[in-house]
């Protein structure tokens, strides 16, 4: 599978999209299917938005999808941000730390491993592959307590490390990187590089990494969200709510015990705020999917 510089996809699409033949105008059926899918996915998300506009006396008494315009939204946001002197900001900062640092390191580790599994033939490769697959088979629920006990032996429990370190290994990330490496990096360029005498690490940096970039962006996005929304690991590791990420913090808000009214609206508002950075990240990163790295242009 060679990728020459015959032209970008944008060029091709432009050249071949005109003149518009009959039946090749805006494809109605695919667009309609896409719209139906979008609506299906959006309705529950819409609920989150609508519910965060409601005050406590409206959440359970008004029609579910009807937003409220009586200022409930700003009340909820301000109450949330004021809760316990701004605990929410602390949780946001923690989440950014866990997800930001954790994802960057995790993607580096996954990219290296995926590249190795894709582009080298070495003894034991398939066994390593299967071993990593086996790592997914024991669910986090079972691993949580052993991980806690093991980390406790090195006195790391309850620290930022206890949430950061276990997030760095992502079998799915390694697999994705392997797939993207296999698909995007041409073997003959690697072979040519080796014939020229380039070292393996240099080859990786200059020849292997660039085509993997759109794939790595995907891995970054997916891993970032996974860590951002992770609940069980920080829940079991942390006991001081100064270290909580958003997920555990909002959960604690929901489960404050029976002596105080449950602040449903604050939790919904907090969840909405928690989704916003992920949307921003998605919008920022998606232009990488349009990148045709070999020609430097943009795909359609």
């Amino acid at each position, binding site marked *: 599978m060679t990728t020459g510089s015959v032209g970008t996809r944008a060029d091709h699409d432009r050249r071949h999209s005109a003149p518009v033949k009959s039946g090749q105008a805006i494809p109605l059926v695919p667009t309609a299917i896409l719209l139906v899918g979008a609506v299906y996915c959006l309705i529950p998300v819409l609920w989150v938005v609508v519910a965060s506009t409601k005050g406590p006396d409206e959440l359970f008494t008004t029609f579910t999808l009807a937003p409220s315009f009586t200022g409930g939204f700003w009340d909820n946001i301000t109450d949330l941000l004021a809760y316990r002197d701004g605990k929410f900001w602390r949780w946001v900062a923690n989440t950014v730390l866990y997800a930001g640092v954790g994802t960057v390191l995790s993607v580096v580790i996954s990219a290296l491993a995926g590249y190795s599994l894709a582009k080298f033939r070495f003894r034991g490769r398939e066994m390593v592959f299967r071993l990593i697959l086996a790592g997914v088979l024991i669910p986090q629920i079972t691993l949580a*307590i052993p991980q806690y006990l093991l980390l406790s032996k090195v006195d790391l429990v309850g620290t930022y490390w206890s949430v950061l370190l276990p997030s760095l290994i992502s079998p799915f990330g390694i697999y994705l990187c392997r797939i993207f490496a296999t698909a995007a990096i041409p073997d003959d360029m690697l072979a040519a590089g080796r014939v020229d005498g380039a070292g393996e690490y240099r080859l990786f940096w200059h020849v292997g990494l660039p085509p993997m970039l759109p794939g790595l962006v995907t891995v970054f996005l997916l891993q970032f969200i996974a860590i951002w929304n992770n609940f069980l690991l920080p829940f*079991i590791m942390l006991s001081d*709510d100064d270290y909580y990420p958003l997920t555990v913090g909002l*959960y604690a808000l929901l*489960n*404050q015990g029976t*002596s105080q*009214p449950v602040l449903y609206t604050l939790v919904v508002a907090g969840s909405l705020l928690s989704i916003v950075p992920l949307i921003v990240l998605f919008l920022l990163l998606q232009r990488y999917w349009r990148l045709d790295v070999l020609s430097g242009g943009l795909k359609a």
Partner: protein
Amino acid sequence: MRCTSMLKALSASMVLAMAAAACSSGGGTPDSGDEGGTGGGLRSYGDPNAPAELEFWAWATNIEQVVDIWNRQHPDQQVEVNSQAQGDELVTRLLTAAKAGNAPCLMQTEYQALPVLVSNGVAADVTAAAETVRGEFSDSAWGLTSFSDQTFAIPQDVAPMMLYYREDLFEQMGLEVPQTWDEYADLAAEVRRKAPDRFLTTFSSNDPGWFAGLSQQAGANWWSTDGEQWSVDIDDEATEQVASYWGRLVNSGVVDGQPMYTPQWNRAMSDGTLLTWPSAVWGAAVLEGVAPTTKGKWAVAPLPGWTEGEDVSGYWGGSATAVSEDCEDKAQALKFATWLNTSPEAVRGLITTSGVYPAATDGQTSTALDSPPAMMPNQTGFYDLASEAARSARTFTWGPNVNVTYSVYSDAFQQAIQGGADFTSAVAAMQDRTVADLEEQGFSVSQE
């Protein structure tokens, strides 16, 4: 000063308790309340005045504000609160933390979770220290943290059960507040007749504590121990009576079978689909979050009794402050724990900032409880009713595997409601599984 000299002069533990009561009710100054607790009992654990840094896992809202009072007065004995989420998982986290040697010195634990912690060696025996404040609590409350003459925590709040009802709808529909469960059953049928889309209440398969409280009221005693063996009697007469009563009501459709604390239940409580709620003293606070539009529409009555004129209740929930076995500063921790739950300023703080209903008898008559809860401004005698219910509420001994029993409760009653079966079958399932689990753990269970 007056306090300690009195304590030094007297020796009998009975009199100690009286003295402790005199100390803490005698004045509001920090010192007197403090020193009442530094009597002989604490010294057996160490030096209660030595510096310490204590970690406290609690979930009561804003409890840091109450703890701050202590921290200001005791600069070398700082207590750091780590807020937790309430629930089953917290007990597991405590057990896991204890296994790893990370258990906090102080923990807020629900009454039914306490034996689990005790039997896993996580909660320490605090009898010697607790004796000094024994008089602060009614027998009923004291029984919540003590078994076979040993005490394992200081009671913090109690939650006697009471009946909440929609006063406005009762008036509108011409209903009378029931005094007995028979009247309640008749009322349920009447409601269905008058308004087919409403229910008198719902039976929730998600809330085993609710059912336990009702069973307590009927006289049940699910676990007992003679120090050697455990006995399990979940299927005793009282519980079977409660189960078949509610089973009859649910299966005949006069009472709903939906779980509580769902959006559906919240709406039903808001729009009057549900007319009553057998709940506990904290019910008003819950209603504030669940159905704030019904402010002023609810009223509270004593829980209906099984016999005419009976005035007994049960408990649903409540928590205590325990000290962990691994704690190296037990004396100081106990000093704090007793202060938190018996000193006037701490109890007042608990009431006003954390919204708890104190277990300490004096706390229940505190001026902070003069006005009714925000949700029920019309019922000025709310807390009088509560303290009456607290005085006579029955409790029972909790066993070392309550979590198993509660888990079986949910599944068994879900099935019974879903299948329209007799609820006593669910109780039987609870009994069988609890006994089996105790035996499997290695406890010696008496076969009766």
